[in-house]
């Protein structure tokens, strides 16, 4: 088993007890909740006659079901309105801090945690959402959990957990111009597969990660789960500390040196031992586009779709299903694949830097008349910051719709959905069958700049051609 890694240090600092089952009781430092996976958990707490043990350590927002055309209440969708009512009642009843529409801090749960300084190095974090791995960018252990586990965290501030193995993923050298964090994370998943991370925490490191901003690190950690790893993290460094300084819930200035020393102490040491180490070269990574129904079915934008015979016996059936569903053929180039919808947003790529990258491509150009294109900021704060820079105008003038904050068409629980066989270029994280709201709909995942380029050309395009 791994030794001396951030994973081990954070884990050890939070173990309450070894349970009779062999699992460990782990204290959860930060619990984030949203409207979809929490109502049943609160009901279970009430039914069992329990209380919320540490209400000050849980923070709530609404993101999955919220309409992005307008946040006005009541929502047109009665079920969404009912769900909204449930979280409003529960946060009142149990005394939980709620980032609702009026707070100015509503947004996707994995975007508002970091931007408010709630997510801090050395913490354990849990949320009833698989993309909780995002918070690992700060050197935390952040677990996606189910609703019954949300109940456990509410009632006890703890989870019963099994220890994971740790795989170090080094990406050395530098990225080529126009290659983004999204391409790095899609590349790693392509190489290690969607099952490769089962049983592992992924520690991302090397020169490429050292050079990344916090927002870029969040994009990579966000998709650890798409590679099968429940937890992904980057060791905290000066970039992390600088990001956190002055945020709403960050520690105050006078304690800063002490706090930074504490945070830094969790980083994996030079003598850390891993269960596995893999290495990739930053120079080998191209802008990546998914062509299939799992996030590892992807190619470089200038590559052709792979022959079925190139895959292992284990993969062939999924590959054949993917080609049928996507109506694409082996040997075809991915570049030039026509799109119907362009979606920029989500917990993967809905932050300010993502919108900036997409806006650079969109500026002074027009969305293809065949394409329905929209931009959904990840949070109210991202929206305000983007508007301050005039990004909303850039997008609107190019023909993109500019929306309110939410998860939107990443999982299509709100009115933003694909229709029929529509195919999207999407900056989100999952290309599963039916994911974007139509059971026959199709998704191609790519970076925000690549989505913007596809929106303009009406087909998959190498965004670097727009950056010359």
């Amino acid at each position, binding site marked *: 088993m791994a030794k001396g890694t951030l994973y081990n240090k954070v884990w050890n600092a939070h*173990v*309450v*007890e070894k*349970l*009779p*089952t*062999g*699992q460990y*009781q782990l*204290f959860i*430092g930060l619990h984030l909740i949203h409207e979809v*996976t929490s109502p*049943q958990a609160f009901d279970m707490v009430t039914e*069992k006659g*329990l209380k919320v043990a*540490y209400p000050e*350590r849980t923070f709530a927002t609404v993101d999955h079901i919220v309409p992005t055309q307008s946040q006005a209440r009541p929502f047109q969708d009665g079920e*969404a309105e*009912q*769900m909204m009512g*449930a979280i409003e009642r529960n946060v009142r009843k149990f005394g939980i801090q709620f980032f609702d529409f009026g707070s100015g801090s509503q947004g996707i749960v994995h975007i508002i945690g970091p931007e408010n300084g709630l997510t*801090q190095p050395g*913490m354990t974090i849990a949320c009833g*959402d*698989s993309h909780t791995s995002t918070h690992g960018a700060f050197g935390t252990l952040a677990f996606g*959990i*189910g*609703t*019954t*586990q949300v*109940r*456990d965290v509410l*009632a*006890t*501030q*703890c989870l019963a957990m099994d220890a994971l193995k740790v795989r170090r993923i080094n990406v050395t050298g530098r990225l080529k111009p126009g290659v983004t964090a999204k391409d790095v994370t899609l590349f790693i998943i392509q190489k290690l597969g*969607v*099952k490769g991370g*089962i049983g592992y925490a992924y520690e991302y490191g090397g020169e490429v990660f050292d050079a990344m901003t916090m927002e870029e690190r969040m994009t990579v950690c966000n998709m650890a789960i798409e590679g*099968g790893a*429940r937890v992904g993290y980057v060791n905290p460094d000066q970039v992390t500390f600088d990001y956190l300084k002055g945020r709403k819930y960050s*520690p105050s200035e006078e304690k800063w040196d*002490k*706090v930074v020393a*504490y945070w830094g102490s969790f980083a994996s040491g030079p003598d850390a031992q891993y269960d596995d180490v893999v290495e990739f070269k930053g120079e080998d990574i191209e802008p990546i586009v998914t062509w299939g*129904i*799992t996030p590892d079915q992807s190619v470089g934008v200038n590559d052709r779709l792979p022959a079925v015979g190139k895959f292992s016996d*284990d*993969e062939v*059936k999924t590959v054949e299903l993917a080609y049928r569903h996507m109506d694409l053929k082996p040997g075809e180039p991915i570049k030039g694949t026509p799109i119907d919808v362009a979606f920029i947003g989500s917990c993967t790529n809905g932050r300010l830097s993502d919108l900036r990258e997409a806006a650079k491509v969109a500026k002074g150009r027009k969305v293809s008349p065949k394409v329905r294109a929209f931009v959904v900021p990840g949070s109210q704060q991202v929206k305000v910051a983007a508007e301050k820079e005039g990004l909303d105008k850039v997008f609107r003038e190019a023909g993109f719709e500019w929306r309110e904050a939410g998860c939107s068409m990443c*999982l*299509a*629980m709100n009115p933003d959905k694909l229709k029929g066989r529509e195919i999207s270029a999407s900056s989100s994280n*999952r290309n*599963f*069958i*039916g*994911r974007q*709201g139509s*059971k026959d709909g199709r998704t191609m995942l790519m970076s925000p700049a690549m989505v913007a380029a596809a929106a303009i050309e009406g087909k998959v395009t190498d965004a670097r051609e727009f950056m010359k």
Partner: protein
Amino acid sequence: MSKVIKVEGRAVPVEGNDIDTDRIIPARYLKEITFTNMGKYPFYDERFDAEGRPKGHPFDLPQFQGASLLFVNQNFGCGSSREHAPQSLMRWGVRAIVGESFAEIFAGNCTMLGIPTVTVGRAEMEGLQALVKERPTTAFTLDLEKKLLLSGGKEHLKIEVHESKRNALINGTWDSTGLLLANGDKTAEVAKRLPYVAGF
């Protein structure tokens, strides 16, 4: 809470690797604020056409009605953490899942509901799926204590199961709240020791 030592019954096969939780339960059904109706929805979009007519999915075939074991392949339950996925399978009638491998969060959610997720090799699973397709009346017993899957009363197959999950199931402590609550004082000590809890 009941001990889960043996699961007996017939089995239903759902073939394919990487069956994600969006396929197990489409997100639109997550808008319900209770799990009560989830048993109506497992694999909904794969089972029914646009008019709601069954398309011949194993969950709708007469020979698999009443099955309590589910036979699946690799990385079953990948993707979203939605507990609605195991809830929908459980409320349809699934009491145990045998597969080649499971996604982490899904398997954890199953344990929290008292549903064992146990694994066998690829050849074994192909054999099991072929067997239930050919002879759907075959009676199985999943024995967690002995770590065996018995088919037709005689064939024994060794299964792998995560040891802590097995302990939790056979000792009836799979619903972990009680165990965690019992250590409330120790939890408070850990909270006190963590500098960030007290605001540094």
